[in-house]
């Protein structure tokens, strides 16, 4: 049976980055499960989630890597930026420090991803307006200065979460349409047509391991 009309046409790899406790995993969970995890433990590693969305009539499978935010893992999580088509950079609107660190996250993203990677800035926890520590305007300015897409969202209520994922996908899809994103490049973060091995990450190709050096 020909699978062409109903398979997903693309796989986009996303990463979610940002300081510890800004709600990265909750955002992922809200997006994949439509649920809020109130007692979400710190991510020790990189969580993985997936969902199929539709952009311009094209079905796109999103593979989302939700990274640990703890500073001590920073060096390791850098491995996961490679080949991301989209990056969701999250801060917590009630904690200024998480906003102040954005430039460092952005530097990593710019250095470790390719120029066509769609970067979306998300100010999370907008449901707790009374504890706001970062204004919408300054974050908006920061986003504009750096050419980032931006929303304030709430992983708790789900507000604007969907939008961030979808808008990023639209941007990536647009880059493909415009020819700005080379599908053949190994690190574009986009795969056309479903494949048997959609998971690249830091595994497979670099897997020359200990057993092979003991010769």
């Amino acid at each position: 049976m020909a699978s062409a009309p109903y398979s997903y046409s693309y796989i986009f790899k996303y990463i979610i980055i940002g300081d510890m406790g800004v709600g990265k995993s909750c955002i992922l969970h809200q997006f994949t499960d439509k649920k809020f995890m109130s007692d979400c433990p710190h991510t020790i590693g990189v969580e993985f989630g997936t969902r199929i969305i539709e952009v311009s009539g094209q079905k796109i499978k999103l593979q989302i890597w939700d990274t640990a935010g703890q500073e001590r893992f920073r060096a390791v999580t850098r491995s996961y930026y490679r080949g991301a088509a989209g990056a969701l950079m999250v801060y917590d609107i009630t904690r200024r420090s998480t906003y102040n660190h954005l430039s460092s996250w952005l530097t990593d993203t710019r250095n470790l991803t390719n120029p066509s990677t769609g970067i979306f800035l998300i100010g999370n926890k907008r449901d707790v307006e009374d504890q706001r520590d970062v204004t919408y305007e300054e974050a908006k300015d920061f986003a504009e200065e750096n050419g980032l897409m931006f929303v304030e969202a709430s992983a708790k209520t789900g507000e604007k979460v969907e939008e961030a994922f979808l808008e990023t996908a639209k941007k990536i899809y647009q880059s493909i349409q415009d020819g700005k994103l080379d599908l053949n490049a190994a690190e574009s973060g986009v795969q056309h047509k479903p494949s048997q091995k959609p998971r690249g990450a830091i595994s497979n190709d670099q897997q020359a391991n200990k057993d092979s050096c003991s010769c």
Partner: protein
Amino acid sequence: MVPGSKTSDFVSNLFRATDQVGKKRGGFEEFHWLSKYNSGSAQPHDEKEEIGSESLLLDSPELAVPRQSIAKGATPIAARESVIRYQMAMKEDDYTITEVIRVFVGTWNVNGQAPGASLADWLASDVEPPDIYAIGFQELDLSKEAFLFNDTPREDEWRFAVTNSLHPKAKYRRIALVRLVGMMLLVFVREPYAPFVQSVATETVGTGIMGKLGNKGGVCVRLDLHRTSICFVNSHLAAHVEEYDRRNQDFHDICSRASFTFHTTPPSPSRSIKDHDQVYWLGDLNYRITDLDPRLVKELVDAENYKPILECDQLKIQHRMKNIFVGFKEGEINFRPTYKYDTGTDNWDSSEKNRAPAWCDRILWKGDQIKQQHYRSHPQLCISDHKPVSAVFLSEIRVVDEVKYRKIHEEVMKKLDKLENEFLPQVMVDNTEVIFDVLRFLEPQSKELIIANTGQVPVQFEFIKKLDDTSYCKDWLHIEPFTGFIKPGEKCDIKLEVYVDKKSACKLNSGQDKLYDILVLHLEGGKDIFITVTGTYERSCFGSSIETLVYVTVPIREVPIGKLMELENSKDTPQSQPYAIPKEIWFLVDHLYRYGLKQQHLFEHPGLHHEVIQIRNWLDNGSSDPLPGSVHSVAEALLLLLESTAEPIIPYNLHNVCLGASSNYLQCKQIVMQLSEHTKNVFLYLCAFLQELLSHSADNELDAKTIATLFGAIFLRDPPRSRSDMAARSRANQQTLDRKKANFVYHFLVNDQSELIGCS
């Protein structure tokens, strides 16, 4: 039945069965359709009955395969799509509402005439405009050209006439026109419905001579309006009063041979007439009145007493006998027979045949929720020897509530996405921060980790390398097993062993490395877990450089870590007065000098591990007790100390020069003179000791060659090499190198070194 019709019926059933089996993946017991050929009665397979609740659906084994493969991302996503379609079909009632539409069906045998006046009396006689028109003609053109070449100017003429006579209160769009010789069927829908018409297809079946020619047969249009499939059939069945059997056969031929193909997602086998929610059958069916005197018929008609005539209507009789139109209904006939009139009049045919008038032109329907509102003829139109007939139906169609549909579709998608995420590999690791106690040189420690598969799918795990790393863990760490497979609900014990040996000690001593590593535990097709391994390394003279040790005048454990690191890393000479050689080397050599000169096989016998550890502690902590352990252990500790320094006595940068000069004592001496002061001291001190040792060879049975070979490997330690280098170096090659190293040291064991010592 005509030969072949049964076969084609069988084939179309096969198609449908393939479809069913494809959907169900059930097995042979699902082949209910076969029973048709055993019992003679069709048992359409109703798959909705097979599926009970939603939970049953999720647990049914047939879905397990796509789910798992979906979860692994290796999906034929078509499987996922079919699951979505299947679930949506199951929930159709939840997102559809019914809507009643007005369907106008008209049929007219025009006897080859051109349209004259407006057809409004036929097509627009009701107050309410219909939503769908299906208008069928027979004998559109009786010319030879039409018959042989299927080409006629009448098509356009009648099409214009019809288009201009549609109900004036509404706007229509023609969605199909199909013609076979004189049979033509036109379907129009009101503008607002046009966007919801899909999968329009037409079909023609000729049942004339050879079962092919199109003077008799049927033309059909099928369409989906919203979620309801509708089929219109316009047929002209065999003529002649007595030929009802042929008419029956024509009917069955049309049913079995009409096969609609149209684009669907997914591509589905072609559909036949009966595969529709609603079928409207119209046409000149040609069934007559028999067994009744024509004069009597005319009398009864004039008295509008149709009942006794209809008793003799062949169609009614055949229908009652279930020879034709099984499952179809026909409304009550309250209009005069529509055939045969003198053209242009309302008078019965006056030709010599004197046939009984008959209701040749009929409209029947099949399908639930269809109410006939009108069934009538239109005698005002008299250009033909037939009168046109029309019927108006109020038919329920299923309309998708877009809001509900989207909501339910999203729910289905969400459920699948959720399933997919739930079916990702999941494990629990009992400890993601493994902390070791104080670790000492040459003393291994191990801890266990438990990886439990808490997910629903088997897990293949592996510790993987981080970006730019050459291995998945530091060289002082060993993970066993580093890869494995865990079934759901099962566990795997992982042993982490930390062991600082002569290779890893110097980096830890100098602070170049720490007992800290983050392991990446990767689940194939799933997430990664970081496991942090930490410990405190207790610095030792083992693994320290000679340059550092000469400045450490107290036991090394008494020196603050910061000071040690400073010594290890600083290039400039510290203030304090250094020893000529490290005191640790002096202690060990002095001990051997005193107690081991006459010891047989010194440096050849291995020491005891626990004694080496005691010696290490004695050196590192300082003690007033005598140096513990046997001379063999002390000898081994000395070798170990020399082997664990960051740089060997002959530094790596002089390694090749030395090997090149190994046959030439003079050159060898020059190289030694280039060594840094403390290293040179150690070298010459050790050589002096070894000469002393060899002077007792009568007792200790040692020979210069053996000692030279042993110390050659230590003084000229091979630089760390990449694996490819190691592979390139053959065994024979290595022997040559080892011999050169031995040669180099040998010079210094057999020649007098006092001049060199004097120089320092």
